[in-house]
């Protein structure tokens, strides 16, 4: 292994060595290296294979725009595909593998695709693979799918954690290069709250890769000192390894901090990555510029690199990407690479400048350094295998020369990194001066500075950065002096050269997706002439680099091919994320058991102790049933619980039902407008079942209304609709009728509510309440309610029943809920009290024909549910008018009915459709469906509720309950929905 490491410091710690592997082979590097720099230092140039043609690819750049050097990082469940080697900070034990190759990187069988490349042109698949039609899913698509994709997902759950954090500041600085540091320093010195983010682990941006000088010291040193000063300021937060990836409405920015990606595994209690949501009064876009490549034949051969990246490897990482490095440039900046290479004692065989007249000063300096110059010349081809060996240059007069070189540094000019300036829909503007787009229509509060704004010189970066920092500080009330730093003049001239005409070999525009100049020409020929169509047809810019290295060039070529100016072709709107973001980071803690909060009932711990099986009902977790040892299955448990209630007494925690406190002089009048039935006539100390509609006439929810005092009501809602009903009431109170004297409060969380039901419930209650409240006989009749003190605490009792037995609901302050349940269980021991869960509750409500969520499903009217008699004709209420529309009042609408199987042993299934007996199973015979079913331990057969067209007129009719999905087809009889105690005697007993 030959070392390409140069002498000198750079920004690596040479005194420490880190071991790592690439494709299982061991290498070493230093802290401060990236995987790319460490591999280049070890002489490794072949890093991957391209997407389509499986061409050998090396490192193109040194930053997040890298299209080629993608690897699978880490192993096992932490395997992470498509990771840019240029962004991976080296750590001890790092393991990386190349991807999209078989059997190995050096000999990839699929490279045969390259031979077939004349067939595999842009969009070839749209024109073929159509015959025979059945072959698509069986043959063609599987082959395409296998071939596509780059890396492999681990297939295992991500073992690391992620978190989110919120931050607020006066100024968010995006990018920690010279412009960003100048802005941050200027604003922070007088005290503004500043957050500075940089995707690199080292602040300084180009100052680290270049040999600039600021105020007499090296740019890199200036960056270190600026960083130290910023760290010392209390209102500054420096976030390195952090990419601002999205700009959102309301001055909100999303940034991803890679907290632990530079260590083997996250430290204890540390996330792998942290998603920052930043609200910033002002933002400074100091994201710099991206260097463009030039399209020419064989421009993808490993060894062809961006000139600025070559410079970065040499200056920052002290790595020589090659021994003999030619330079191909269309701008002044490319020359600096040559000078830096010579400074590092590397061989520069030639500077090829596409311009006829490069600045004389540069030419003079090159001559002084003894470098051959070829002005007006173009590189049109490359030689070599999986690594560059030489370039082919066509001189000004057309003569061709070959130059031996193992590396070619390409400088096509700089494009401002405008992406974040367009996230809110603003368009970048074409700048003729720099031959690139510059930010124009920026998001509110954002200012672009430095290279990101088209100011390509260091002096310009510092000047615009400081000015923006001053403005931002001023807007937050801090008077900041305008900082000034001294720098040298630098030439920033540039010509526009997108591609070299007359190339030898494939000339790539988009490296990752293997989009060539010919592909673009083909797309244009076929009419895909807008930037968007071109992108979609050729997949240009749709790789993991999101077109950072290709989009602009592709559009410029499109412009040239269609005889338009680049400004006319326009750009693709950049949308978040700026660089790809781990899905885990965007979810953070909201995954697995933590996906949504879990609401526990007041008696949860008690139920756990009793071995309850729980069920999730929305966010709530409720006891579903309470199995006893020896019970064969859950059905026998539920049957026992039902029987216990029907013959003795049972208790059930029903605290999840919504509870809304309504007070005020107009509370009665208000509730008359809310409920379809009359509420204001309710006496104090009484409760009533009520149904409320949406304004469109459909039932919103049902529940009980209790009048605690003249101007004080308590409503109950279903568990799932609690939030929606509260919102509905608040809307009615605040928006529709603000003049009414009504005060609303949700008291769902305040009260634990326990149903006590069964013929012996009165006895049990009398035992626990003692003389706190008289419940005997007529003292507390059906639908009575009372407030009283129990154990010195407030309590409420309602004589209401969902299960159809004599029953009560006892409410106590929530923190005493468990104590109340224990008290009831203790007192009920000799009465054989059974705790019952939601399943038994469900069985009993079906036996009683009570509609629940499956029936109140957002499409049924009060009449559909058989509640028409409740609807008051004497008043207006929400939903009254529209419920009268013909479609909602039609006689043939489905009505709630009961169902029982003719064969009493047969099972009914929910979701079955109702067809006339003997009718064929077609849609035209579909007359209804089964909404709820249960085995009734009381009736000893299955029963169900459902909806049937004109159902109420069809009691006794026989139909098919048809469930082809489960392979069931049962003869059923249409019945009244109330199977149990239809006269309602038991609840009144």
């Amino acid at each position, binding site marked *: 292994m030959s070392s390409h490491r140069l002498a000198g410091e750079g920004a690596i710690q040479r005194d420490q060595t880190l071991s790592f592997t690439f494709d299982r082979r061991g290498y070493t590097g230093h802290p401060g290296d990236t995987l790319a720099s460490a591999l280049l230092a070890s002489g490794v140039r072949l890093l991957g294979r391209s997407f389509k043609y499986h061409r050998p690819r090396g490192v193109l750049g040194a930053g997040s725009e890298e299209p080629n050097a993608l690897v699978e990082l880490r192993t096992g469940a932490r395997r992470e595909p498509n990771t840019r080697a240029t962004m991976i900070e080296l750590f001890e034990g790092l393991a990386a593998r190349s991807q999209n190759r078989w059997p190995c990187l050096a000999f990839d069988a699929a490279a045969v695709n390259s031979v077939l490349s004349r067939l595999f042109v842009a969009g070839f698949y749209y024109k073929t693979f159509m015959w025979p039609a059945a072959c698509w899913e069986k043959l063609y698509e599987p082959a395409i799918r296998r071939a596509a994709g780059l890396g492999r997902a681990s297939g295992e759950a991500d073992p690391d954690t992620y978190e989110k954090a919120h931050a607020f500041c006066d100024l968010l600085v995006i990018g920690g290069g010279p412009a960003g540091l100048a802005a941050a320093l200027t604003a922070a010195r007088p005290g503004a709250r500043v957050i500075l983010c940089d995707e690199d682990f080292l602040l300084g941006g180009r100052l680290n890769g270049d040999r600039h000088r600021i105020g007499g010291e090296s740019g890199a040193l200036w960056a270190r000192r600026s960083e130290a000063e910023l760290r010392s300021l209390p209102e500054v937060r420096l976030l390195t390894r952090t990419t601002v990836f999205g700009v959102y409405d309301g001055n909100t920015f999303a940034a991803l901090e890679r907290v632990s990606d530079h260590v083997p595994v996250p430290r204890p209690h540390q996330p792998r990555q942290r998603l920052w949501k930043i609200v910033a009064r002002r933002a400074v876009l100091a994201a710099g510029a991206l260097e463009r490549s030039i399209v020419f034949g064989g421009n993808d051969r490993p060894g062809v690199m961006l000139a600025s990246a070559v410079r970065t490897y040499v200056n920052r990482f002290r790595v020589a990407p090659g021994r003999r490095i030619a330079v191909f440039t269309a701008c002044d900046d490319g020359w600096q690479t040559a000078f830096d290479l010579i400074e590092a004692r590397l061989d520069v065989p030639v500077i090829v400048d596409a311009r006829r007249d490069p600045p004389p000063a540069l030419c003079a300096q090159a001559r002084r350094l003894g470098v051959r110059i070829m002005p007006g010349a173009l590189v049109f081809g490359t030689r070599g295998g999986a690594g560059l060996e030489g370039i082919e240059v066509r001189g000004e007069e057309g003569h061709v020369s070959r130059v031996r070189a193992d590396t070619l540094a390409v400088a096509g000019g700089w494009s401002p990194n405008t992406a974040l300036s367009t996230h809110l829909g603003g368009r970048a503007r074409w700048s003729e001066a720099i031959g690139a787009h510059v930010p124009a229509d920026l998001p509110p509060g954002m200012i672009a500075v430095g290279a990101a704004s088209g100011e390509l010189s260091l002096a310009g970066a510092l000047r615009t950065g400081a000015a923006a920092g001053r403005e931002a500080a001023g807007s937050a009330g801090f008077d900041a002096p305008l900082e000034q730093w001294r720098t040298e003049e630098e030439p920033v001239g540039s010509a526009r050269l997108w591609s070299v005409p007359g190339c030898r070999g494939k000339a790539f525009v988009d490296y990752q997706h293997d989009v060539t100049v010919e592909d673009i020409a083909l797309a244009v020929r076929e009419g895909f002439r807008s930037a968007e169509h071109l992108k979609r047809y050729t997949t240009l810019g749709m790789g993991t680099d999101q077109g950072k290295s290709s989009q602009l060039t592709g559009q410029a070529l499109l412009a040239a091919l269609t005889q338009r100016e680049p400004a006319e072709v326009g750009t693709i709107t950049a949308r978040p994320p700026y660089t790809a973001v781990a899905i885990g980071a965007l979810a953070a803690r909201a995954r697995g058991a933590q996906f949504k909060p879990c609401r526990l009932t007041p008696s949860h711990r008690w139920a756990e102790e009793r071995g309850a099986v729980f069920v999730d009902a929305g966010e709530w977790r409720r006891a579903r049933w309470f199995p006893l040892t020896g019970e064969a299955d859950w059905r026998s448990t539920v049957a026992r619980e039902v029987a216990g209630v029907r013959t003795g007494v049972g208790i059930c925690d029903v605290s999840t039902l919504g509870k809304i406190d309504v007070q005020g002089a107009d509370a009665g009048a208000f509730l008359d407008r809310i409920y379809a039935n009359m509420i204001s006539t309710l006496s104090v100390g009484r409760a009533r079942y009520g149904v409320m509609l949406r304004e469109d006439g459909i039932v919103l929810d049902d529940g009980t209304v209790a009048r605690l005092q003249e101007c004080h009501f308590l409503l109950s809602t279903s568990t799932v609709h609690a939030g929606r009903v509260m919102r509905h009431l608040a809307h009615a109170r605040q928006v529709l009728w603000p003049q009414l004297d009504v005060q609303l409060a949700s008291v769902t*969380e*305040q009260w634990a509510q326990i149903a006590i039901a069964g013929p012996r419930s009165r006895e049990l209650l009398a035992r626990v309440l003692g003389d706190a409240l008289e419940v005997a006989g007529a003292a507390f009749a059906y639908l009575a309610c009372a407030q009283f003190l129990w154990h*010195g605490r407030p309590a409420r009792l309602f004589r209401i029943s969902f299960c159809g037995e004599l029953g009560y609901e006892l409410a106590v302050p929530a923190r005493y809920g468990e104590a109340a349940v224990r008290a009831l269980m203790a007192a009920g021991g000799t009465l054989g009290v059974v705790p019952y869960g939601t399943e038994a509750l469900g069985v009993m409500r079906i036996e009683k024909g009570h509609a629940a969520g499956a029936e109140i499903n957002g499409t049924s009217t009060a009449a559909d549910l058989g509640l028409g008699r409740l609807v008051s004709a004497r008043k207006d209420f929400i939903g009254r008018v529209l419920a009268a529309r013909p479609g909602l009042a039609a006689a043939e609408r489905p009505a709630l009915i009961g169902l029982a199987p003719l064969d009493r042993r047969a099972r009914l299934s929910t979701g079955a459709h109702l067809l006339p007996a003997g009718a064929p199973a077609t849609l035209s015979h579909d007359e209804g469906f089964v909404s709820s079913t249960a085995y009734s331990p009381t009736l000893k057969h299955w029963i169900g509720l459902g909806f049937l067209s004109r159902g109420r007129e069809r009691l006794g009719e026989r139909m098919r309950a048809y469930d082809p999905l489960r392979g069931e087809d049962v003869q059923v009889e249409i019945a009244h929905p109330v199977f149990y105690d239809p006269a309602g005697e038991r609840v009144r007993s």
Partner: protein
Amino acid sequence: MVDSAYGPLSPFAAMPASAGTGEGVVAGEREGLGIARITARNRQLAALEQLVHKRLHLALPAGPRRMRSGDLAAAGVGPECWLMTCESAGNAFAAGLRDSIGGHAAVVDLSDAYVMLRLAGARVREALAKLVPVDLHERSFQVDDVAQTVAEHMAVTLWRLEDTGRGEAAFELSVGRSFAQSLYRAVHDSAAEFGFVFETR
């Protein structure tokens, strides 16, 4: 008469009491508070303010602020609406309040509706920044400022207390009782990297 068997239960009893190393965030449960929501009756605001001032020696704040007077505090939680708290008065607080100001305001006992955590420590702001989308910087969220907001899909209310004796920031954070364990877990996980300790009395 208060029966000892009929006692309250802390939802945090079974939760892990510490995480990480150090005491960057110290939490404790605020128990026994009387909490009542009072809402002015229509066109009774001025009368209510006067009455509260006269009987409770408390000026009702106009916005999301908290005013304190002895054991009592009133936190603005909506237009013409406050969350009043009273140290260790429990459910009796609302009943008393109803007698005292019920003519001008709807008084609703919410002593059990919330669980409340007191959070303090050198890193408490950093931990809370992971939970609540509100700027808690000392300049933006001052002592007795109140915020109702959302933390991991849970509606939370928080206010800032006086800094601790050690000069560390302190907050009280409350959530609906049924969410107690989910919120605790979120606080625990957010604070773990700074060192989290739950102090039981």
